[in-house]
């Protein structure tokens, strides 16, 4: 061993004292405190002091600034048997709003209804819903609902009201009236009956704000029955509608749309299609779907009906206002004579309806398309009853009046008379759910339950019953309307008990009752019974009773919008208010609809300003001394002498925030002709200097002849079913035969190309330089039939309810910042000045889930990827909001959270918005949110997900059951609610699936993809529109004057 010494420094070499000292203390571990004395007196070195100061300040800051808001979650102490958090429960029930009926299933999550589905067991609505049914769940959580009973607008109790009302009723000697809307419920009728027996002074009258009294009276005169028949649009080969918007608002549109779609489904192998004629004054969705359409003045409708009658019975050629009208009536008459015809009419006039009955009788419709064996109860009101009651009130002859589901101070044509009359009635009671215009004037307000909180039943058609069960216990201190009557009649049971007993008895056993309740409906088995009736109407009297049409001047026509209908609680439903009207695409307001020519004549012509600026010219409408100022909205296809105004707007703040300052009330434009309410009258119209912005989501009218949709006449299509196929082949066919195409790629990946379209496959693989990603397992796809889509907007509402789509308010819609995930594009074609030439197409448009999605590759942070099931996904957490994806989307279906609409943001107090949508952020309203779907915060992109939460749910259920997913188990919200089944959805790789068969067999010829040629490879296909007429106007430069107009 060497004795060499290695040293690190001179200190170590020389082993100095200092070095020895420092090495021995190398790891000195003294505390920085001087512990020699009292600890509290100890000196802390400056650096340590600073360290501690720094640490404690930082800790305090961290603790203070990271305080999380306290969120209240109340767990179940004992879990209810049938509620599992996170698992939805479904209850069959019934939507009833006066005479409007729909069999539904309520989806509840954690004890609260969040979504309405159609009940497919019902033979009437067959699983369809309407936009209003979909949105009705939001009314349950309406902040403007009354939370307790009131006496003289002071909070009160039921007991106090019961005492006061029974005393007043007992003392009353004058006639009293119970005014309700049409009542479908047999038990409610029974309860009313008991009540009127107990208090014989009380008379029950029915008031329908939108009246069908003329039909009821005509039927009584012609068939001896004051009722409505059942219509069978499915069995009709020729459908003639004289102003009846039966696909949108007339009587039972869900039922009729379902039936109508049967005759409109067409494929290359089944070329039979019903023929639909429509004569109308405004432009409705029903008119938009018609094969032949002509316009007339509203006052001319009777003359048209007579002309049709004469053409059928005597063969007399019609001599009406315009050639097209004559042509349509003549053609319709010829077709009707072939049998299987159906004529419906929207006029509320006993004479016109008598003529229509005579036509139906003459063409043999009774017993084939008009069914008198099973009658409908949708409307029961007789106009004269209401008018007489109002007169009686004003004469001081009425002792008491009760209002249930009616609001005459708003809905009656002479509101001031009702208002005056009410002052003379000692006992006034309203069962309104909100402090509406009538309730405000009543002494007692006893708010009724919402229908989702109620027990009940309905008999929409004789012998066809539907049960109503609540989806939630009453949220507020409200009481069922029937309970009040029963209590006052001295009945000690509640309506719910009475109802239970009634049905238990009727069903015979508890088991049968349980099944009925579970299914929601009690219907006769088998096909609906069919029967005619003997016509005994006096046609010549009716014809002579029909008033002559106005020969000149403008007429105002009052109509119902698909969204909010007659108004009621829907006037305060932000979903419905923001739903773009299917025809005008306008939101939040009502307006005066006029034709382009009328607008031009008024000096408010259709210029490019309409597409640049939302401000519309305001016109002053004067009817019988009543003036109203409304903005005009131009609607091609309207009669040039007609101004149409929608009902249901112009409410006050008490009806709700959303209803406040929204549009104008059009009820005063209704008139009474001594027998029926008429929804048209002469009007003076003049342009004012004012402008008013109307929030319209689609400002361009024409599709510019672009091949984004395809329409053919039935003749073109029958002659060559491959007409569309050939067009597509010319565009993409050559990719199949590329010399360098990898022909065998499908074998290699193990996917058989049997049944798959070689043209599409070739284009998919060879239309790009990039490799093709074959997906395995499920591949979702959707098909939308443009023939059966009636543009009703139901899917828009279903999507909004299912996917927590934000309401943005009018100010934001004005900036085109609306959020709907699905929109229904509406395109007009034709000559703007000739309303008869206008044809309309609806095209539902949502994320196309492109397999080669332009949005996906441009996102800098990969926030929108693709799944191997063909879904285009949004990762909200990852999105930084560059909006690049939305710009690059050729379909413009991506929606950006421009503002904090849901309070889901991390910034406090930053709601920057229209006060009319404020209620959407209320804790009560937020109960409607679907917990399965993320509430998006500000600054992220969103769009249709194909209801991925539903797909996952269905897959998990299948997995739990240990079997593959079956076709039809996973349904998107839009598909499920569609009343015409225009939307089909499923696994395109499942050969048993509907979508597979549709795409590859049944509808090969009608199938197309929007913007297929840009190789986005969408997973939604459309089926071409086939019109049962002689020529297609759209895209034909000689006939489509809207096309090159700079609108």
């Amino acid at each position, binding site marked *: 061993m060497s004795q060499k010494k290695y040293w690190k420094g001179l200190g170590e070499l020389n082993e100095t004292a200092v070095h020895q000292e420092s090495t021995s203390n190398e790891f000195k571990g003294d505390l920085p405190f001087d512990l020699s004395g009292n600890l509290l007196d100890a000196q802390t070195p400056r650096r340590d002091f600073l360290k501690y100061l720094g640490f404690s300040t930082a800790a305090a800051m961290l603790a203070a600034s990271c305080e999380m808001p306290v969120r209240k979650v109340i767990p179940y102490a004992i879990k209810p048997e049938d509620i599992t958090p996170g698992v939805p429960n479904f209850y069959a029930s019934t939507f009833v709003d006066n005479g409007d009926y729909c069999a539904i299933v309520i989806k509840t999550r954690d004890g609260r209804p969040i979504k309405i589905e159609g009940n497919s067991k019902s033979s009437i609505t067959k699983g369809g819903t309407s936009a209003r049914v979909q949105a009705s769940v939001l009314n349950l959580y309406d902040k403007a609902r009354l939370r307790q009973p009131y006496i003289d607008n002071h909070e009160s109790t039921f007991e106090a009201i019961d005492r006061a009302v029974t005393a007043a009723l007992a003392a009353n000697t004058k006639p009293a009236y119970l005014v309700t809307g049409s009542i479908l419920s047999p038990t409610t009728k029974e309860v009313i009956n008991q009540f009127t027996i107990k208090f014989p002074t009380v008379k029950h009258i029915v008031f329908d704000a939108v009246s069908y009294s003329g039909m009821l009276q005509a039927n009584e005169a012609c068939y001896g029955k004051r009722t409505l028949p059942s219509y069978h649009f499915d069995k009709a080969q020729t459908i003639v509608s004289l102003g009846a918007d039966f696909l949108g608002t007339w009587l039972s549109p869900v039922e009729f749309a379902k039936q109508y779609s049967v005759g409109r489904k067409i494929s290359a192998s089944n070329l039979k299609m019903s023929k639909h004629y429509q004569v109308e004054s405004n432009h409705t969705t029903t008119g938009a779907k018609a094969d032949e359409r002509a316009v007339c003045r509203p006052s001319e409708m009777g003359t048209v009906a007579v002309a049709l009658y004469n053409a059928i019975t005597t063969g007399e050629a019609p001599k009406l206002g315009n050639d097209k009208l004559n042509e349509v009536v003549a053609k319709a008459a010829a077709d009707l004579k072939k049998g299987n015809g159906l004529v419906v009419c929207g006029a509320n006039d006993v004479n016109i309806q008598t003529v229509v009955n005579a036509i139906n009788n003459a063409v043999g419709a009774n017993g084939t398309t008009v069914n008198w064996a099973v009658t409908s109860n949708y409307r029961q009101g007789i106009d004269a009853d209401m008018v007489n009651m109002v007169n009686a009130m004003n004469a001081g002859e009425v002792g008491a009046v009760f209002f249930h589901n009616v609001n005459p101070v708003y809905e009656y044509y002479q509101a001031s008379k009702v208002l005056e009359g009410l002052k003379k009635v000692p006992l006034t009671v309203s069962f309104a759910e909100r402090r509406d215009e009538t309730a405000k004037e009543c002494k007692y307000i006893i708010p009724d339950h919402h229908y989702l909180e109620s027990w009940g039943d309905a008999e929409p058609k004789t012998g066809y019953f539907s049960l109503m069960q609540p989806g939630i216990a009453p949220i507020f201190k409200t009481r069922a309307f029937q309970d009040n009557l029963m209590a006052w009649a001295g009945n000690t049971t509640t309506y719910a008990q009475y109802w239970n007993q009634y049905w238990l008895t009727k069903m015979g056993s508890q088991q049968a009752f349980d099944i009925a309740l579970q299914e929601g409906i009690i219907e006769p088995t088998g096909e609906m019974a069919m029967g005619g009736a003997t016509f005994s109407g006096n046609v010549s009297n009716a014809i002579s009773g029909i008033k002559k049409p106005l020969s000149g001047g403008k007429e105002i026509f009052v109509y119902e919008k698909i969204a909010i209908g007659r108004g009621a609680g829907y006037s305060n439903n932000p979903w419905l208010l923001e739903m773009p009207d299917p025809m005008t695409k306008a939101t939040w307001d009502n307006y005066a609809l006029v034709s382009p020519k009328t607008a031009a004549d008024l000096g408010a012509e259709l210029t490019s300003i309409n597409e640049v600026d939302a401000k519309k010219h305001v016109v002053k409408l004067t009817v019988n001394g009543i003036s109203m100022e409304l903005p005009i909205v131009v609607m091609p296809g309207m009669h040039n002498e007609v101004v149409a105004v929608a009902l249901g707007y112009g409410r006050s703040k008490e009806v709700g925030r959303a209803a406040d300052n929204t549009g104008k009330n059009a009820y005063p434009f209704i008139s009474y002709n001594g027998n029926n309410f008429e929804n048209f009258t002469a009007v003076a119209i003049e342009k004012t200097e004012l402008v008013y912005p109307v929030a319209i989501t689609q400002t361009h009218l024409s599709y510019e002849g672009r091949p984004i949709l395809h329409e053919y006449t039935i003749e073109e299509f029958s002659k060559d079913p491959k007409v569309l196929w050939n067009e597509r082949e010319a565009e993409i066919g050559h990719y199949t035969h590329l010399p360098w195409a990898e022909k065998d790629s499908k074998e290699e990946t193990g996917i058989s190309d049997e049944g798959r379209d070689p043209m599409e496959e070739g284009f998919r693989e060879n239309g790009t330089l990039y490799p093709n990603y074959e997906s395995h397992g499920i591949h979702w796809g959707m098909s939308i039939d443009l023939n059966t889509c009636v543009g009703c907007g139901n899917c828009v509402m279903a999507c909004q309810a299912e996917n927590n789509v934000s309401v943005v308010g009018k100010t934001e819609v004005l900036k085109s910042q609306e959020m709907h995930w699905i929109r229904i594009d509406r395109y007009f074609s034709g000559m703007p000045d000739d309303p008869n030439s206008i044809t309309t197409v609806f095209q539902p448009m949502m994320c196309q889930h492109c397999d080669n999605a332009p949005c996906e590759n441009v996102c800098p942070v990969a926030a929108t990827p693709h799944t191997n099931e063909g879904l285009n996904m949004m990762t909200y957490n990852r999105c930084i909001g560059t*909006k690049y994806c939305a710009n690059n989307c050729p379909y413009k279906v991506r929606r950006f959270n421009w503002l904090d609409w849901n309070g889901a943001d991390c910034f406090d107090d930053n709601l920057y918005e229209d006060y009319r949508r404020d209620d959407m952020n209320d804790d009560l309203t937020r109960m409607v949110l679907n917990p399965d779907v993320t509430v998006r915060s500000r600054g992220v992109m969103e769009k249709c997900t194909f209801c991925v939460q539903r797909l996952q749910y269905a897959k998990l259920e299948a997995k739990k059951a240990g079997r593959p997913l079956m076709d039809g188990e996973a349904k998107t919200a839009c598909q499920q609610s569609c009343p015409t089944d225009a939307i089909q959805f499923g696994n395109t790789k499942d050969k048993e699936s509907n979508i597979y068969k549709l795409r590859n067999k049944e509808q090969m010829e009608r199938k197309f993809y929007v913007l297929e040629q840009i190789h986005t490879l969408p997973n939604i296909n459309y089926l071409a529109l086939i019109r049962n007429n002689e020529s297609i106007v759209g895209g034909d430069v000689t006939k489509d004057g809207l096309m090159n107009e700079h609108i």
Partner: protein
Amino acid sequence: MHLKYESFVREPLVNGEKTYHQVTEEIVRPIEQKPGRMWYVGFFFSVALLMLGVFSVTWEVYYGIGVWGINRTVGWGWDITNFVWWVGIGHAGTLISAILLLFRQGWRTGVNRAAEAMTIFAVMCAGQFPVFHMGRVWDAGFIFPLPNSRGPLWPNFNSALLWDVFAISTYFTVSLLFWYSGLIPDFATVRDRAKTKLRKRLYGIASFGWTGSAKNWQRHEALSLVLAGLSTPLVLSVHTIVSFDFATSVIPGWHATIFPPYFVAGAIFSGFAMVQTLLIVCRRIVGLEDYITVGHIEAMNKVIVLTGSIVGVAYLTELFMSWYSQVIYEQDAFKWRIMGPYWWSYWAMMTCNVVSPQLFWFKKLRRNIPFTFIMSIVVNIGMWFERFVIIVTSLYRDYLPSSWTYYSPTWPEVGFYLGTFGLFFTCFFLFAKYFPVIAIAEIKFILKTSGESFKHKMDVIHEKPTEQFVHEQAEAHH
């Protein structure tokens, strides 16, 4: 090497009988003096504008992008228009310093410092827009490829927007380095002349201990060349990549292969116009007419007329291609540009960018300073409209007519834009006060070859017979 003799045909790049000292005096004097009244007024207005911008952006970040006018169809409006416009402006500086350095263009020395400063400030302004146009700006970090625990999750390298981030940040870094390395000898000059301790210290730090030794100069020259080499491709790449934001999309009017060269030409066009705007004002206020001469202005006007013509050809090519493609969406996109509700923006662009710069074919107008000034502003308005036309008028009417809409900006968008002017001019005023506006060292470098004073000394040579001159030149090179 520079010739000892330069013809009189070439006008001098520095006017007046300047000595080296005089050059130093004239350029450094503004730094050492209190600024004039105009400076204070301008600076105040710039800061006020900047504050307006800060307020507008705060408003937008707090409430959301919905306070702007952009919508479901037009997802980019003034924000990206302004971004592209500022980036375009930021092209001239580097072009002047890098490409003209490599091409040995002596005239660049008079303007390169200010042009580079302008580049850096313009890129700073441009950078604000992509940041604050994000819906969730607090998550802007997602865009950087940083190692993370989210999977790991990387940005999408297919996205042109991501390339933008890299392109702009690289460009900014290199431009800043280039600019700063050029400033070092000049900072040292200021330091050496400094009479106050603070100034000496600050400029001492800023000049990195420059001593002016031969080694210093040698390395400085080498660095300049390396950076110039690096910047040259960047000048072309930045706007190429910005154009990819549009060119790689599927929107008619965006999806065009012509975009990269067309964008680069447009960028140089607008960049030179902005240099003109700034220098015409600057030379007047700071009194540097001798250094930034009419000759300089004319040279830049020549670039403007060239690039303006390229841009014009590009516009016409686009029109031709849309017709030639026979794609209706493509044809309609241009139809709606020219004749749709935004027709005025298209014609503003055409007039300002294509028609008016053609006047620069006239030498008289090229050398007319007030005219050049007006024209430089016209060009920048035109170039702003070009970006607006490309972005907004492609989006507002694309494939499905149902979604066609219109777009108008709201006050926070306008405020944001004005705010970037505030930022730009605040920076520029500070630059004009504290930095040598003209590269002192570089201008001295050409003083002896291209300065007016030197040219007078050439009289003797000029009068010599040609043979003798040739002989002497040949001798001198041996």
